[in-house]
């Protein structure tokens, strides 16, 4: 397999130093399919480079392969699962993807559009990676745990280490750095490229800081983080689950891109701008030769510029904001891109290897005559702070309607937030926030952090969370979140169409929710904003399986005498009698005793069996005229057996 999505020749300086080593090509297989790549690739990046852009099919449509949909992988012969995005591609390895179900072989190729899909049946129940249920391979302690190696995380790590703390920094990527460079440089400020390089170099040189790369915190509670890291061992990748106890933790988890909601928003070829940028910068990958950029953010326009400088064709750049202003637009104009403002994506549909992108212009309505046909639709829908670990750590969340974001709130024992996860946008602010977070860990006091921004006259704010419900039937689902937990409902069927079976996949996949799912559901109107705190607290949990138990002891209740529930059952004068059943038979406890064979109603009972063997039978009796030697009747279901009262116990 060649690498159609890998940059061939000249690229802009921002993409000129990827993590891959082009002098060291590698070959491996995924599900038996041959994949080519370079040393430094992850399994995910290599698949994308080879044109495998779909994870499989859900609700009858393909689903883009990315960090959200990538199934866990295993190496042949080893059962331990690894996140595909963290797993290094290794020469000669045989990888297999793990999923509940794959499409039946005869249909897989049809569903898979040839060789561009992993062919998973994504309608099948989702199974999370096995690491979330795994016992730890290693347990360690650190003074300060930093989650996220962007500028805020790196600044926090250095601040803590300078104060004498032992620090562990956990970073998903192969190197720290984060997304600061994505947002471009601002006049008068040090370029983010230089800032991140300087911070990263300082961190690497500091003896008190341990950096775990290709590592992800998947659980955080009670002063303990659980981390999955993929390491190389004997030239083979292996997952390692670490339990890291901490005295304090800083969550510098940043922000992830919001997925604009429109029919077809998870089709193969629809790529989030931040993800596209990271794939380009780290692995030299670009999704197709032609693309449409749809951005509600200023930084999104940079993708048009960078893509064009990398030899790709920008067919059109649209923005839902009616009058966006940013310095990047001026560059786009200079490049001669066709720009469109006040424009929403009405839908995207697959057509051979391209997407047909329908546009909806606020002024002119849906422009059905001129859909854009592109290999890729790069979307930048704004940002959602990554507050998942914060919620797991006991923090709360609320919906900020002005921002269209779910924001972390409340407090959490020994855990604080720093950087863009708190809503800070600028690099300077993120660095200050990182430093301030260490002070907050020390004394519990939150510090105000300046976040200088360019005036709105020059740089518009991000656009609103864009939501576009399906206007007709037969369109691909408009997923509310990237993990495809729920979709916008289609308009009701009318006329003869009501007789047709309903397309599957429109119902909610009931499982634990990611933060992006929740914010999408709020924006899409399926969760009321006021319910955001309680919904987040209840539904954002780790989807662990209930494990084999060491069951807690149950009290044996071996106290002598009558059990409490029989006290006073027949009044304060009740007494226990010894009975002699006819035929020396035994009765179960609870059998009711009556004065004759006709009575069956419990209200008319005069006693009940307390215990009874074939040799000794004790009954609890109401005070009656009956005495020793009298006959009473014990009812066991339909059978009624006479028994003689022998005497009080």
């Amino acid at each position: 397999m060649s690498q159609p999505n890998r940059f061939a020749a000249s690229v802009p300086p921002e993409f000129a130093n990827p993590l891959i080593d082009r002098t060291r090509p590698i070959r491996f297989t995924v599900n038996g399919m041959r994949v080519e790549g370079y040393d430094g690739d992850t399994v995910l990046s290599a698949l994308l480079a080879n044109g495998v852009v779909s994870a499989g099919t859900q609700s009858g449509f393909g689903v883009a392969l990315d960090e959200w949909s990538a199934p866990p992988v295993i190496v042949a012969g080893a059962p331990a699962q690894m996140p595909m995005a963290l797993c290094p591609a290794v020469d000669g390895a045989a990888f297999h993807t793990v999923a509940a179900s794959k499409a039946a072989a005869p249909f897989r190729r049809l569903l898979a559009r040839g060789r561009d899909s992993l062919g998973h049946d994504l309608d099948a129940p989702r199974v999370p990676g096995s690491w979330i249920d795994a016992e730890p391979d290693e347990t360690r302690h650190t003074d300060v745990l930093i989650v996220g190696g962007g500028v805020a995380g790196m600044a926090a790590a250095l601040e803590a280490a300078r104060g004498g703390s032992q620090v562990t920094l956990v970073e998903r990527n192969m190197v720290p750095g984060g997304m600061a460079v994505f947002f471009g440089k601002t006049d008068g400020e040090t370029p983010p490229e230089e800032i991140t390089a300087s911070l990263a170099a300082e961190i690497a040189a500091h003896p008190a800081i341990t950096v775990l790369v290709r590592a992800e915190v998947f659980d955080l509670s009670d002063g303990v983080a659980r981390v999955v890291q993929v390491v190389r061992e004997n030239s083979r990748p292996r997952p390692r689950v670490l339990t890291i106890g901490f005295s304090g933790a800083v969550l510098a988890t940043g922000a992830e891109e919001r997925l604009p909601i429109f029919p077809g928003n998870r089709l193969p070829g629809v790529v989030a701008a931040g993800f596209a940028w990271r794939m380009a910068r780290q692995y030299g990958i670009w999704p197709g030769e032609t693309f449409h950029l749809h951005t509600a953010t200023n930084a999104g326009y940079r993708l048009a510029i960078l893509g064009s400088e990398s030899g790709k064709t920008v067919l059109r750049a649209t923005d839902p904001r009616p009058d966006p202003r940013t310095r990047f637009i001026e560059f786009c104009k200079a490049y001669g891109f066709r720009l469109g403002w006040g424009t929403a994506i009405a839908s995207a549909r697959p057509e051979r290897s391209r997407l047909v992108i329908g546009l909806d212009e606020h002024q002119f309505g849906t422009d059905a005559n001129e859909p854009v046909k592109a290999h890729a639709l790069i979307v930048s829908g704004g940002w959602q702070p990554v507050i998942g670990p914060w919620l797991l750590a006991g923090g709360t969340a609320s919906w900020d309607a002005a921002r269209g974001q779910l924001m972390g709130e409340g407090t959490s024992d020994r855990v604080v937030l720093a950087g863009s996860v708190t809503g800070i946008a600028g690099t300077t602010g993120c660095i200050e926030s990182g430093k301030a977070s260490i002070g907050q860990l020390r004394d519990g006091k939150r510090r105000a952090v300046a976040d200088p921004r360019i005036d709105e006259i020059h740089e518009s704010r991000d656009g609103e969370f864009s939501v576009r419900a399906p206007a007709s039937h037969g369109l691909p689902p408009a997923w509310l979140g990237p993990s495809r937990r729920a979709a916008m409902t289609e308009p009701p069927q009318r006329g003869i169409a009501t007789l047709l079976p309903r397309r599957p996949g429109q119902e909610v996949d009931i499982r634990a929710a990611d933060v992006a799912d929740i914010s999408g559901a709020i924006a899409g109107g399926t969760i009321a904003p006021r319910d955001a705190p309680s919904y987040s607290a209840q539904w954002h949990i780790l989807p662990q399986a209930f494990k084999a138990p060491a069951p807690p002891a149950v009290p044996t209740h071996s106290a002598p005498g009558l059990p409490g529930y029989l006290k006073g059952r027949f009044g304060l004068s009740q007494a226990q009698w010894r009975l002699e059943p006819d035929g020396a038979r035994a009765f179960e406890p609870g059998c009711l005793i009556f004065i004759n064979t006709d009575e069956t109603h419990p209200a008319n009972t005069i006693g009940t069996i307390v215990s009874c063997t074939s040799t000794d039978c004790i009954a609890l009796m109401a005070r009656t005229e009956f005495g020793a030697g009298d006959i009473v009747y014990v009812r066991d279901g339909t059978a009624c057996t006479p028994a003689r009262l022998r005497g009080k116990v």
Partner: protein
Amino acid sequence: MRRGFIGESYLIMGEAPHTIAVAGTTPFSLVLAGLLAADHGRKVFVVGDRPSVHDVPPPPSFSVTPVTRPQTLQLALASGPDMLRRIGRVAPDAIERTDLLVRAGTPYHETALSHFRHLATGYGQVVEREDADGGGTILRIRDATRLSPSGLAGHVRDWAERVGIEWIENAKTFSARRNGTALLGGKDIDQLVLADDAAILAWLDASIIERMGRVRDDLAYIAERGHGVALPSLSLADGTLFDPLRDGTLAIHADNTDGLADARIAAALPQGAIVRKAARKGRTRLDTHDGAPVVGTPPRSKVYITAGLGPLDVALAPVIARHIMGEAHGFEAEWCGMRAPGREMSGSTVAEIAAGVAP
């Protein structure tokens, strides 16, 4: 002593209240409020958050569950079917006929279940004994009616409006008085009813709560589909309850006072089942010391409280409503009087099979 409680009960309820505030958000609280408004014609305010369809639901109510006091079962069976039928007209998806499995777990609970089985059979219920995997006893209570809280949640708003209930979600405008009345935004309310454990813990003096019972922590989960649990099932020994929901998920409720809810749940699940958590919610509950219901007003307070009714709560709601209104007579009044909050808990003559620790 018993007569005194009954007398006190009549005395308090002598003058029926005109306006009633029902504090609580469980289905029982809402049903009780509905009865007071619809059947007794009172102006009713519900104090508490409206239930959300997205919430991990509270435990379901049943028409029949294991109890050992014949009077309790008799009352529940007398008023429950009609009550649940009425709810079914308002919220059809909240009511379901189902078998309920009850697992004993210990010899103590096996004996208690045996008492229940004979009692229930006497009242015409079909209750069958089944052998449990790995020993022990399981009872199958056939054809019980279940009220699903999540099914009800979606209809609460419309229904409340229909019967004229006013919802007070902002508790800041509401204050309770010890004499049983309440103040709502400067307006007097004749009677405050604390209708669920959360309301009792929020509004009642700690000393009264301590006399009545112990505060426990519960953990409720929604588990993903594919759990393999077909019927509602209750582990009597520790109170763990599985409640399969209509959407294919499983609601699970377990005691977490010692932090071991997950272990209890795992132990109660079918062997080999991989059941994944989807959502979680912690709640506090009040276990009465004798495991029996508490209804009425505590000594030196005229706030009406209900606690410990268990899954029979909705079935017993009409009885409680009549008692609040002073319209309970004879058998019902005696049953309520025997279960007044001020009763002697040690050596209680109304004690029930308590989940967890026996009285």
